[in-house]
């Protein structure tokens, strides 16, 4: 007799496991992205003001602009990596659920 597996329950458990990972970490990522974007905007405003007031040279203004744009790009690149790390954890949490369900239904560790 082939053992049975409750597909609906397993699917629901998989989604719940994945959601838990996302739900726990996503607000932290969002806060980080917002805070860094705000800092970038403030820094660019400062450069504009300093240049207008003659506090920095054109060469300095261009260089600072390049530095801040690159560091902001680094934030987005990090966010890409962080999102993948969260996705990996969520997928593996969901896989653990289905792995456990399948192995239990069969009676020995198949996957």
């Amino acid at each position, binding site marked *: 007799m*082939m053992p*049975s*597996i409750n*597909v*609906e329950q397993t699917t629901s458990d998989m989604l719940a496991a994945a959601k838990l990972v996302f739900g726990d*970490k996503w607000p932290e990522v969002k806060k*980080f992205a917002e805070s*860094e974007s705000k*800092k*970038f905007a403030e*820094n660019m405003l*400062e*450069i504009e003001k*300093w240049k207008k007031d003659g*506090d*920095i*040279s054109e*060469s*300095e203004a261009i*260089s*600072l602009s*390049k*530095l*801040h744009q*690159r*560091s*902001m*790009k*680094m*934030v987005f*690149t*990090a966010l*890409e*990596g*962080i999102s*993948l*790390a*969260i*996705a*990996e*954890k969520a*997928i*593996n949490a969901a*896989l653990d659920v*289905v*792995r456990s369900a*399948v192995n239990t*239904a*069969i009676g020995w560790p*198949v*996957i």
Partner: protein
Amino acid sequence: MLITRNITGISFNQIFLWTLIALLSLFSSGCSIKLVADYDPVIDKTVTELQQSTAAFFTKMKTASDADRTYDKNKAFYADAKAVVSSLILRSKIIEQDLKKTSLTDNFVSLDKLYDELEKEHKNNPSKIYFKSSEAAFDQAFRAIIKHMVFLKWNKS
């Protein structure tokens, strides 16, 4: 709700289950899905040390006299920092070599370019304001890398 049909004695449920097992075995190979690099404590420690030496450099540039702030008197900092970044790029390339996205390596390459840009402008004897603002850019860059490392560590916990 699954519809159970008997086709030569095999139910749809059975076919579904064995397909699921086959797919999971194929994709997970008994372990787990890998989208990001493993956490590397050596990279983490090296980044922290580089951040500290860079912060010390900016403190010096913001407080030193004009004579002590010249590029010639401080060029050793760039050689040292770029040597460290080079080792970080090498190490991150190894841990990300089989991945589609190489975010960590990309950011170390960007960090290298930040030092290049700072060094280029340093040769023009920039003001203290320049160093103050460039420090903010480096702080942001290090925050991005360190945050990324924190998540890689969490991912493997």
